[in-house]
């Protein structure tokens, strides 16, 4: 089976580089599945899970603030943060989620509201991947 080289890079350094059979992720415009031989593509990713599939299983990454660059044999995911399930502190994410929810309820001006919303998304994404 053909494979893709996937590398995930963040400002804090490379997170992962390996070959996989398929990448599925959520772009801002909807779910995307990338197989080897895909046409070159650039797409921003939403705060979501990236699933990397290979023969013997799937790896998950919680991605925030990223976009992907696709070439026929290579996928590069650039993100402000990308975490493996083992790096995620679920307890902390839950606390962050509660904090964000509280902030959302106490209606403030729109910038804080947006921020809290993003924080909530990030926390839920982490919990989702971490569990």
């Amino acid at each position, binding site marked *: 089976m053909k494979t893709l080289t996937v590398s995930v*890079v963040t400002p*804090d*350094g490379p997170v992962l580089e390996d070959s996989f059979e398929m990448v599925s992720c959520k772009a*801002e*415009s909807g779910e995307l599945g990338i197989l080897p031989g895909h*046409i070159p593509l*650039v*797409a921003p990713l939403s705060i979501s899970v990236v699933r990397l599939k290979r023969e013997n299983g799937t790896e998950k990454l919680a991605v925030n603030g990223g*976009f992907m*660059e696709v070439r026929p044999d290579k996928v590069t995911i650039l993100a402000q943060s990308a975490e493996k399930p083992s790096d995620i502190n679920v307890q902390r994410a839950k606390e962050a989620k509660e904090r964000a929810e509280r902030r959302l309820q106490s209606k403030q001006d729109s910038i804080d509201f947006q921020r809290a919303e993003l924080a909530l998304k990030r926390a839920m994404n982490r919990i989702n991947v971490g569990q």
Partner: protein
Amino acid sequence: MKSLASLRDIKGRMDSTKKTKQITAAMEMVSASKMSKAEQNAKSYVPYSEKIQEVVASIAANNTDVSHPMLSKREVKKTGYLIVTADKGLVGAYNSSILRHLQRTIQEKHQSSDEYTVIAVGRKGYDFCQKRDIPVSKSMIGLADQPKFADIKELASETVQMFIDEEIDELIIFYNHYVSAISQQVTTKNLLPITDIETNGSGSQYEYEPDQQQILEVLLPQYAESLIFGALLDGKASEHAASMTAMRSATDNAEDLIGELELSYNRQRQAAITQEITEIIGGVAALE
């Protein structure tokens, strides 16, 4: 003048200088290890910055009709200066060269303080601006020695937001570029608007999902934030290097001083002994 000091005084000074030397030598080693770590961080940031630059460049190169406020110059009513300094001293000329550069630039380019604002990273820069009534719109004190992107994300995105909201019309960053462990260079970078995107002509044609305009919307702020992060990492490496150099020369100076003190200590001790012998011999001669 030295002969006035008693043996005990000299001994005291020698002891205290030795202790100072121990401290500075330890600080030098701490800075050296922090520096190599910071160098590592700066290196691991490179793949990200290269890639994001490549993608931004390829979009900008292939689509001349794409426009975005962050790409286009506008009339400058207010300039934002982002200065990267340390929280503490003991780093040689690291802080002062940046601050001198800032002051000179302000004097040359601006008539009134309405025309500029400073975003200060580091306590030294913040205090400097406070003392001289330079307007500071944002500041960050207590940045970690090995900053993570998450630590500076807020500052970076707020700064970029200032540009988008037209609070500032250009953003210039001053930091010490890390050339090597013994050389750091004050560097000025025009960060926003983004004008100098190198197109290395890799010429990759991409499909864009959903479209270029929206991708730029997402990508450019991220690109600008990553540039700020890169400058901070570079500045941190320089800070540790400068601190290492400063501490090394302090250690060397202490060593010289100890040598001199030792010499005059021995000389005085010898003089005292000689005097005592002379007195004894004199006493003996008087008895005979």
